[in-house]
Structure formats: C-alpha cells, structure tokens
C-alpha cells in the first residue's frame, strides 16, 4: 500500500484527507501540523507521497516542499490549496510539486491524483 504523509495545520483537513485515503486503500504514514514537522517526518517515515497544505505556521508548504525536494529530489509532493493561492501554486509547480488539488475537492479528485502518481499494486 502506498504510504502517504499528510501535512496540514488544520486538524479538520488532516482528518478529512485521512478518511478519504484510508477508505481508498492508502496507508497513512503520518501527519504533520506544519512544514517543519513535515520535513522531519518525511526524513523519518519515507512516505511515497506527501500531501502539503500551503498556508501553515512555522514553515509554509512552499518552503517545506523545497526542503523535501532538496533532501530527496524524487519526492512526490502534491499541494492542497485553495482558490486565491494561484501565485503560490505556480511557485510550487516550479519547485517540483507533482500536482495540486483545490479545496473544496471531491473525494475521487484527490484519490485519482494520488493513484496516478503511484502505480497501484
């Protein structure tokens, strides 16, 4: 099962993503409440995919994305974003984000995107 690390400062979003992913056969490697913890956990847990919020305290999603990509250039990070953050998303794309979903998303939106990133066994 592909392991996913969820990085988001909102408990609500973490739980919501977690529920969706578990239901669809993903394994949750871990959760992080900001970019800094996300980076640590990435190194620790070696997840297959990271879902990354952008607006977070301590270290925002963009910086975390860059740090993770620097640590592991093959890292698959998808951004979870909201309307109004287009500029940030462009920046994320340039920094190596593999994709992004826009809140509010539908369940299969995020699932399909993650499945596309990792051939499902």
């Amino acid at each position: 099962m592909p392991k996913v690390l969820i990085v988001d400062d909102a408990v609500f979003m973490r739980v919501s993503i977690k529920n969706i992913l578990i239901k669809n056969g993903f394994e949750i490697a871990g959760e992080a409440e900001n970019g800094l913890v996300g980076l640590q956990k990435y190194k620790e847990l070696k997840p297959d995919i990271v879902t990354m919020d952008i607006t977070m305290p301590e270290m925002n999603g963009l910086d975390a994305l860059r740090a993770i990509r620097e640590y592991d250039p093959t890292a698959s990070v998808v951004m979870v974003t909201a309307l109004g953050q287009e500029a940030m998303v462009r920046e994320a794309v340039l920094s190596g984000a593999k994709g992004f979903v826009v809140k509010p998303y539908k369940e299969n939106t995020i699932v399909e995107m993650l499945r596309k990133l990792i051939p499902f066994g």
Partner: protein
Amino acid sequence: MSAVDSMVEIYVFENMQLLEQLEVTLLDNEKQAALSKAQIDEIFRVMHTIKGSSAMMGYDGLAKLSHKIEDIFAVLRQREDIPKQAWALIFDLVLECIDFFKVEITKVQDGLLPDGSHEPLIARAIELDGFIANPPKEEEAPHVEPPAQIIMPDDPKPEKIAPAVQAPQKATQAQHYYMAQIHFEPGCSMESVRAFAVVNSLEGMYEKIAHEPEDLGVNCDEEIIANGLTLYIASNVYGEELEKKLGETMFLQRMELIECDISAMPPSISGELPSAVVQPKKEEPEQTQSAGIEEQYPPVIKQQEETAPAEQKREANRGSGGVQNFLSVNVGKVDKLMDLVGEIVTTESMVTKHPDIVELKLESFDKQSRRLRQLTDELQDIVMSIRMVPISSTFRKMQRLVRDMARKTGKEVELVLLGEQTEVDKNVIEHLSDPLMHMIRNSMDHGLETPQERLAAGKAPAGTITLEARNTGGDVLIIISDDGRGLDRDKLIKKAQEKGLTTKSEADISDREAYRFIMQPGFSTRDAVTEFSGRGVGMDVVCSNVERMGGSVSVDSELGCGTSFMLNIPLTLAIIDGMEVKVGQEHYIIPILNMRESFEPRLYDIIIEPDGTESILIRGKCIRIERLHRLFDVEGAKTDFYDGIMVLIESEFGSTCLFVDKIVGEQQAVVKPLPLYLTRNMGRLAYISGCTILGNGSISLILDANHFTGVKPV
C-alpha cells in the same frame, strides 16, 4: 454517518478554538491599534483554515466571507503604511466577522445549516478594501505598490532566458513542429495554473514553445475551460515522448498532439525573434495590468522574506508548539468518568466500613483497603485535575463585553484581569459565565460614570473595572470591582423600605445589609430611581445562580469611590473532604477545609447573654456557639456542653463554634446537590450545601460553613 458526524465535531471544535484565539489576539492589540506581521499572518492563516474547512463542508457563505477577510489580510501583509483609521475599521470588521462565524458554527453544532446572511459583512469588507487601497489623502499609496510588484515567475526567469538565448542556434536543428490541444477535467479548478504546470513540465523537451492563451501568468481559467490549452512546440524530440509527457498531466480530460508544418506555427516560433520564447515577454506589460491581482495574491518572493524573521521569532516562543501534547476529550466522557469515580469512592467506603466486618480485626484486609483508599484518592485527584480549566477564557469574554459596552455607552473603561490562570472545575466555569456577564454589565451601566461626571468628581476620565480570581483553599474567590460612583446606602435603604423588603429602622441596618438589598428579588425594577435600575436582569438572578453552585455573593462599596462584588465559589462541585459528626441519630458532614479545631469546652469559657445567645472565649476571642441540634431540631441529642464536643469552623467571613454530640471521623463526600424545590425555600436549609451518601448507605447533610460564619440567610 458517524464519519460525517465526527467531521462536523472536528469542524466545530477546531474553528471555534481558532476564533477564540483570534479574538484574544485582536482584543490584546486593539489599544495599540495595530497588528504585528506575525499577527497578521496568524489571522490570515486562521481565515484560510476556516475557508478551507467551510468549503469542504459545503458552507459557501462562511467560505466566501473568510475568503474575503483572508484577501484583506493578504494585502495587509504587504503594506507597511496602514493608516490608523483603517486599523479601527479592520478591528471592528474582523471582530464582527468572528461573532458571525461563531453564531453560524454554533448552528452547525446544533445540526442546523449555517444560513445567516454573510452579504452585509462582505459588503463592508469590500468597502474596507477600498479604504485600504485608497486611504483618504494618502498620495503615496500607489507608489508603494511597485516595489511589491515582483511578479511570481520572476524567480525562474533567469533560467528560462538561458534556453531562450540558445534558441536561435538550436532552432535550426528543430525538425519537428507540434500542436497540442489539452482539455482539463471539468471542475478541477485553477485551470490557468494547471496549464502553467503543463508548460513547465515540458521544460527541456522543446526549443521553443508558445501557447494559447498566451498569458498563463494571470487568471484565464474561463478561456481554458472553453477552448482548452493549445500548445505550439518546436522540438527535436519525438512525438511519442511529448505525448507521454503530456499524458502524465493531472486531471487531463483529453489531449491531442499532431505534428504539423512550420507554417502552422505562430510567429513567435516561426519568426526569428528569440524574445518570442514565452515566459519572459509576457511579464513586462502585465505588471501594470495585473496590479489588482498582485495586490490580492501576494508575490511569493516578498512573502518568503517575511516568513523568515517570523519563523525565528516563533522559534523563540516555542511554547506554542507544546499544544500538540494536549488531547481534546469529549466533555461528556469526563463527566461520566467523574460520576464513576464518585460512585467508586462511595462504594469503597461501603465495602471497607461494611457493618459485617467493621468490628473484626483483619490486619491484611485493613492494609489492602488502605491501599485501595490511596488509589481511589489518586484517581479522584487526577479526574478532578482533568476537569480543571483556567478561568481565562471566561475572563476574555468579559473583555469583549466591556469593549462593546464602552462603545455603546460612551464611557471610557479599562478592564484589568488578574489571576486569569486560576483553575476552576469546568462545570463551575460554565455556570459562572452568565453571572459574571450580568455583574460586569451592571458595573459598566450603573457603577461607572461618564467621563464628564468622572472629571467633575476629580477622577481620571477612564474608569477601571478589575476582575480578579484567586484560589483560597477549597474555594475560588472572584472579585469584580469598579472605581465608579459606589452604592448610596441611604438611597438603598429608602428604596428597600418602600418596597417592603425590610422592617428594620435605618439605624439598625448595617452597611453590608443595605448593600445586600440589591440582591433581593424585586429590588431592581425598570423604573427604580436608584443607579441600579436594570435591564431586566436582576442581581437576584446572579445571586441565586451562584448560590445554586454552593457559592455566595457579597458586596462592599464606598460612595463615590466604587463598588466591589465578591463571588465565593467552590473549586469543584463534586467531592469534598469532610468530617463526619453525629448529632442525636443524625450525621452531618463539615468540610475539612473550614474546620480549624475541635475541643471539649470548659464551662467557665462560655458566655450566655440575656437573650440566650451563647458564645465561647477561645484565646481571648469571643465566638458564637451554634447548637446543631437546636438549629435542625434534632431529638435525643446531647444538650449539655459537658457531654458533647465543640468544632471551630472558619471561613473568610468569620468563625463559629458548632456544638455536636461526637466526631465520627474523616469522610470523603461525593456532593449531591439538594433538589431545587428544597433550596428555593431557603430558611435553615441555607446552612446546607448538599447531601451525600455515607458508607453505610445512609444520607448525610453537608454543612455550609459560609452561612454559619458570616452571611446570615435572608
């Protein structure tokens, strides 16, 4: 279904918490009329979080409003020169939005739809937006914008230019020209950014590229939804490779790639100009056009600069990171746990003091039961501590109340909070909020004078209300004091006599008694001439609320200098350490905290006054004796002081000696409140704060030391 329920629960809990925190931040900073960068960031993030989860829950109104506020703060993040007048508006608007969100989220909590109208607030937000963008008579505003105009894709520009410069040489080698049509899945959002990502993903695979729409740096979602993204590519890679790469695009609905002739290419590719390479060219003219958009969506580069120092700052107050060590638990479960522990404590003494074994000498049983007692004590302490929460959240609510009332009444007030960290049982806090609110409102409305009146009285124009919480052993003392006009004793007595609340003559009424009139039902009426004419909320309601919790209210005042109210509230409503005493066949519990000593009285210490009042001299102090058997009409009790024992009890109001038959021993008492129909009918029942079930299953009454020692029931 339960999954949805739990999402609602998280939604409500998380967002409510964020809103509370936000309110505190705002109120703390309102006086300075400004927010620091970190605080603006915080508000931005909170609004962002609310927007995200509201949108996920399908609460469009809430999502829209939070989005609008988020936008405003995105702008504020970049501005250095926010005019003072704007801050006042910002604080007002955000506070009102917080109220709106709270009301709506409470609806969600109650299983309703958040159907409140967000339009008026949005309209005001737009107004504020305009105000910030064009503050009156601030010419520089437009000049401040340009430095912030570092458009996002600037960063990659140097890299992009490099291939562009090489392009002419390589272009001659480009053997293939392709045209690709890409359509994204409907509803995937941010189509222009997706298109941008597609172009970006092809990097290194083309010599030249052009696309339709030309400018992906601005919002062109509509155009892409309607016509798709068209790519013109000059490249020396094979079509299959390009097709494969493009096929990896997320949310791709359909894609067509055809190889075609150079004649089909737009001039930027077929022509000679190296500048035809897409990215850099577009940005220049756009800088002026997209000013509005850049204002809303902060350039990333700028923002990075900001977050760096902020991060360092946060590193310093790392304390906030500790939040993760907390677990939020459903209050219902803790309540249940509390009940169970109460039952265990009772059962434990029922077992260890069981009549069948109590006479037996069972050494190891005693040992084990002592251990059991230790453990239940510990368990109880832990459960109690779980339920303890700092009173600060309740105090903060008052801050808001004072602020709003000050606005309405035109009075200047400073609210001083002391002892916010005092911990009180959660149940107590819940019951405390309303009485406090009433009392603060009274202080604001009636206690404090207008600035003019204050100046005339030689006081500072701004009044002070102090809200203080203090732990005094088993009780929490909450003091609300103001430096307002104070209570007019004569007026109060006159009023009380008019209303028939007292038959005493004026000279017989002590100051405290006079002040207590304001807590009598029926004293505060709308047309009353005293300064305590209320808004329908009487102090009597406050008083009965507090008394229902086993607490008491007292008032002190000095005319012209201020008034202070003292609420004495038990730390917890659940379990107390008590001393069991016997009077006749009845058992009573005296709270250990109030008990000072017990002793056999010596007859020559006892003083009997002509009216029959009995007192006793203890270390030179004369203390009133209260015979419990007389007070509660207990038959068969000992009446001779020689036969019984005296218990000295003390509270902050004073001391009293209770005369009882004998002391049975220490007892933990799980307090069960007296039923309402009993407490309503005060009289001698005022001496009782509750009842408890003893180890042998009989019921015992818990005595209320406050009533014995000072405050006489009215």
